[in-house]
């Protein structure tokens, strides 16, 4: 098991290095620079700015200097926010985004898992079709539509919940978490339904039934663990995806998260910020994929046996 983890971590290094290299040179190819603005910039001013950010050095040298800083854990100063380092900006944005992602995941697992399991118990009946149709709508409905709809209903008409903010008012975390979680809930619903259906046709389920267990115990004690493996495998990448992809929800609800910094950095040509967030998020994605593989192995006896031998 440990050898497997160590091997995967070693494999991750060239992947992340490749991400850094490609991103570093791609952002430089994009037209326009961090200091371009609507009003013409005086050449002397631009030169002074470029010198402050090492942009006057040859590109290769800039790349090596960046890698050297990165080795020390420094992501460099932001172009857009003078006086702030990229490390600081990521640290400032991460808690809200991570918390939002965790709640969204909770929504996804609880609502989605429940819907999937319920649907799988009576396949091809109303009990199956209704939750699965709702799930299909959930997958198709983009967050930029669902968010404002929820706000209109719960925030403006019913006045139950705040329309924006994060931790400013009681209950302001509910709508963003539901919005972001909905699409993922829909996926988990479909995954858990498929997983459960497969498991329910296995021999050991027939055995469990044959020995006279009530159906709910068959489901909770025997089927659920195997049936949810696809969901667990999905959760790792999903959480990383939630962190990187919460931009729209963060914008709709004015959440001070990482997603807004990430997308704005690209528009602003904030080179260090684009690189910093990309490196950070790609590292997270690698780690979460690994984590979900380990978790899936732990849930699945057949895979666990493999690791045991290794």
């Amino acid at each position, binding site marked *: 098991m440990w050898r497997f983890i160590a091997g995967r971590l070693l494999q991750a290094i060239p992947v992340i290095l490749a991400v850094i290299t490609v991103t570093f040179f791609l952002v430089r190819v*994009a*037209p*326009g*620079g961090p*200091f*371009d*603005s*609507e*009003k*013409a*910039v*005086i050449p*002397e*001013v*631009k030169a*002074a*700015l470029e010198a*402050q950010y090492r942009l006057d050095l040859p590109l290769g040298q800039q790349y090596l200097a960046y890698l050297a800083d990165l080795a020390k854990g420094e992501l460099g*100063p932001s172009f*857009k*926010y*003078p*006086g*702030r*380092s990229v490390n600081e*900006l990521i640290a*400032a*944005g991460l808690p809200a985004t991570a*918390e939002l992602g*965790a*709640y969204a995941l*909770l929504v996804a697992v609880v609502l989605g898992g429940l819907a999937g399991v319920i649907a799988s118990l009576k396949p091809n009946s109303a009990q199956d079709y209704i939750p699965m149709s709702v799930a299909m709508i959930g997958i198709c409905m983009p967050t930029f539509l669902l968010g*404002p709809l929820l*706000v209109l209903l719960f*925030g*403006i008409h019913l*006045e*139950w*919940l*705040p*329309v*924006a*903010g994060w931790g*400013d*008012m*009681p*209950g302001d*975390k*509910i709508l963003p*978490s539901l919005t972001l979680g909905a699409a993922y809930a829909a996926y988990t619903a479909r995954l858990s339904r498929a997983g459960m259906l497969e498991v329910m046709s296995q021999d050991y389920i027939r055995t469990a039934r044959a020995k006279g267990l009530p159906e709910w115990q068959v489901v909770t004690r025997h089927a659920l663990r195997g049936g949810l493996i696809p969901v667990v495998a999905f959760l790792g990448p999903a959480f990383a995806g939630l962190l990187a992809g919460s931009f729209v929800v963060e*914008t*709709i609800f*004015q*959440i*001070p*998260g990482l997603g*807004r*910094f990430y997308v704005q950095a690209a*528009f602003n*040509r904030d080179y260090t910020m684009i690189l910093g967030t990309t490196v950070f998020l790609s590292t997270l994605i690698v780690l979460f994929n690994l984590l979900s593989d380990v978790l899936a192995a732990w849930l699945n006896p057949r895979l666990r046996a493999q690791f045991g031998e290794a």
Partner: protein
Amino acid sequence: MNPVFSLSARVFLACTLVACSTGESNVGQGNREGVFHVGNGSEPQGLDPHVVTGVPESKIIDTLFEGLTRKNPWTLEPEPGAAASWEFSEDLRVITFYMQPEGRWSNGDPVTAHDFVWSWRRALDPAMGNLYAYMLYPVENAEAYATGKLSDPEQVGVRALDDMTLQVTLNAPTPYFLQLMDHYSSYAVHRATIERFGKSTDRFTQWTRVGNIVTNGPFQLKEWQLNRRIAVERNPHYWDADVLRLNGVVFYPTENIVSEERMFRVHQLHYTGDVPLNKIPAYRKLPNTPFVEAPFLGTYFYLLNTERPPLDDVLVRRALSLAVDREAVTRNVLYGSNNPAYSITPPGTLGYQPPQLFSYDPAEARRLLAEAGYPEGAGWPGLELIYNTSESHRKIAVALQQMWKDVLNIEVTLSNQEWKVYLDSVSEMNFQIARRGWIGDYVDPNNFLDMYISGGGNNNTGFSDPVYDDLILQQAPRAATEEERFALFYEAETRLMEQMPIIPIYTYASKHLVHPSVRGLPPNLMDFINVKYIYLDDVPLTEIELE
């Protein structure tokens, strides 16, 4: 699971089960406590007046800092700020400012003339990379120092005669100079604080953080949470603290104007930085509407690249301009929220009225195009219009594309570009027609007209006319009276609009939602907020029901 997470998870679940009440609104609480809640566009880049550029930044910096003067929000005339009074020399080239005797920084230090000398040198220091350094160019030798042609800052025309007397020498009489004194690029910063955290020209230091920053304005920094809020509270050392009626201001980075409008509707904001276009009609219908609109010192126009065919022909440029029904654009696309523009300077800039040489004239437009060799659009080589990605720019471009098709029977293709790509295309003149907007830095026609001098950094059209250059650069600054100066501007602008290197479309309007409790916040041409005059009435909050 760490304790913080599990606690918030439990709170979250509890809230999901029991629908929580939303508590008292910001506006209700703010009215009682004298705290003004402002939707402020985007997270400010920073708070160093010599580093940042932008409207959200300026709104915050104006509460924290104070220049030599501060504009009256009704008249836009300069009132005493860090300077208690000032006088001009006979030849109007030397201004002597007398500092406020009670002027204090937020740490209690006196605000002196030396602070301004040091700060202006910092603002102009080439190593600073200050994008707004040019605002101080009217000062003698400022430009030479800022561009590295002169290395001795002592030569710049700003001197402290003693602690309380500041003398500024200008290159030439500059009628709008006092206006520049409440632009943040001319603000004083606290030397000891800046030097405590690094080199004076270093952009990366921590001196503007809460707890570090020392300012001389009516308010001081209390709280700064990235992408969440910035709160300022009264500066107890402020010289004019007795007139202040607000106890604090909270700025929210409301990047998404649709969300901002919703926050306003549920009383989370007193004031919005903008209003979504499609909500304007519904807000207008409200009794006692919170929608406030006023002419704003800016023009929306299209740049024409006069160096590329077919736009190198003035007849084609005029045909395109005359075929635009500006009234229809402002009425139908902009919901009647802006005024049609027929020249670059907004009408009424300091009382100046620009020439209107033309109006919507389809027949004349067709005639001009035929004269240029494209009768009824025959043989038209095609044309591309670029704009930066935005729904409202797209709508206007589509409207004009259709007008040109209907009136002139010509094809114009539209191409949207991402912001920085678009900026690059414009500055490299890599376009045929490009969307453009210009907001004045100060109220004077010069701020619009000096864009089109030959080779000007913001010209971007290839327009070049030696007579125009002479009028703007030589004659107007030496005019004896304001009327004479305006007559010279009028003559120059007439030449500009005859050559039509730009197609003016509309004059900007500022648009805000302002809660009825807010007083002392008059609309003005600069969309300028003077926090010293604002106060909040404790009016009952009524529900805002839009159709």
